[in-house]
């Protein structure tokens, strides 16, 4: 299974994921990033911190950014 890396940006700070997660495909990586973004946003909001500058960058093993998921992207939930 390919390894995906989930770097977390909060404003100007980028926190690198040096470990990565093995997932079956990009769809699974996107689901993971969205779920992680929801969790980080809930945590921040619960402790009276802002979320509008939060992003998760999905990278492949070569350092290429595949997609960026922002806090705005998860406001509507996963329903079609």
């Amino acid at each position, binding site marked *: 299974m390919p390894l995906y890396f989930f770097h977390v940006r909060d404003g100007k700070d980028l926190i690198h994921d040096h*470990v990565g997660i093995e997932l079956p495909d990009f769809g699974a990586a996107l689901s993971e*990033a969205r779920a*992680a973004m929801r969790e980080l946003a809930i945590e921040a909001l619960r402790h009276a911190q802002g979320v509008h500058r939060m992003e998760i960058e999905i990278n492949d093993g070569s350092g290429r950014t595949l997609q960026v998921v922002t806090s705005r992207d998860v406001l509507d939930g996963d329903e079609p």
Partner: protein
Amino acid sequence: MSPVLSANHVLASLTKSDLELIQPLLEKVELNFRDDLEIPNQRIEHCYFPDDCIVSVISDAGPGRAIEVGIVGSDSCTAQAVIMGSDRSPNSAVVQVAGRARRIRCEGLRQAIAQSSTLHRSLLAVVQSFMIQASFTALANGKARIDERMARWLLMAHDRLPGDTLSLTHEVLANTLGVRRAGVTVGLQKLEAEGLISTKRKVIEIRNRRGLEALAGEVYSVQTAEQRRLTGWHPTK
């Protein structure tokens, strides 16, 4: 008291006669990462007294809905349902950090408890300590920030393992804290930026224990003080 038993506080603090009662029934075992010591709703076979491993007690409500409620290490023992007079639990017990332990068959433990009220009292104090730890896990999960929860868990692991380096993957931390891996990445980075820990791929080094204690605050200190009051166990680092 036999020096070979001193690594586990429960065994080390038994009276001479209680130790003599159970020592012949104890068996040394090596436990591996992810060994299942207790399976939900199945009869518990053994009570484990860890020397230098950590067992995670987990409540499970189906895929993606499991969370650790507490840990058992050199301070405590598993099979607490048996100590309380039952033979099984809906919780599971899984080895989270590999190492050595001693175990006793639950049948032998029941007989020993029936023979000695002081042994039973010692073990009930261990169960009460674990209940307080589990209630503070609930409090931490409900009210504490991820970095506070992580500080609490790292202190609990540091208390129960030798040395200042903890071999823990991000996956283990995510499972124990009930968060996704990104939450672990963020939490570790925050602790590292404050100089409390340093991290390499699978190793976390405790750099400033007092700082971690200050960050975790009451979600760590209250249960620890209560465990000392109940069982005499206390952190030595």
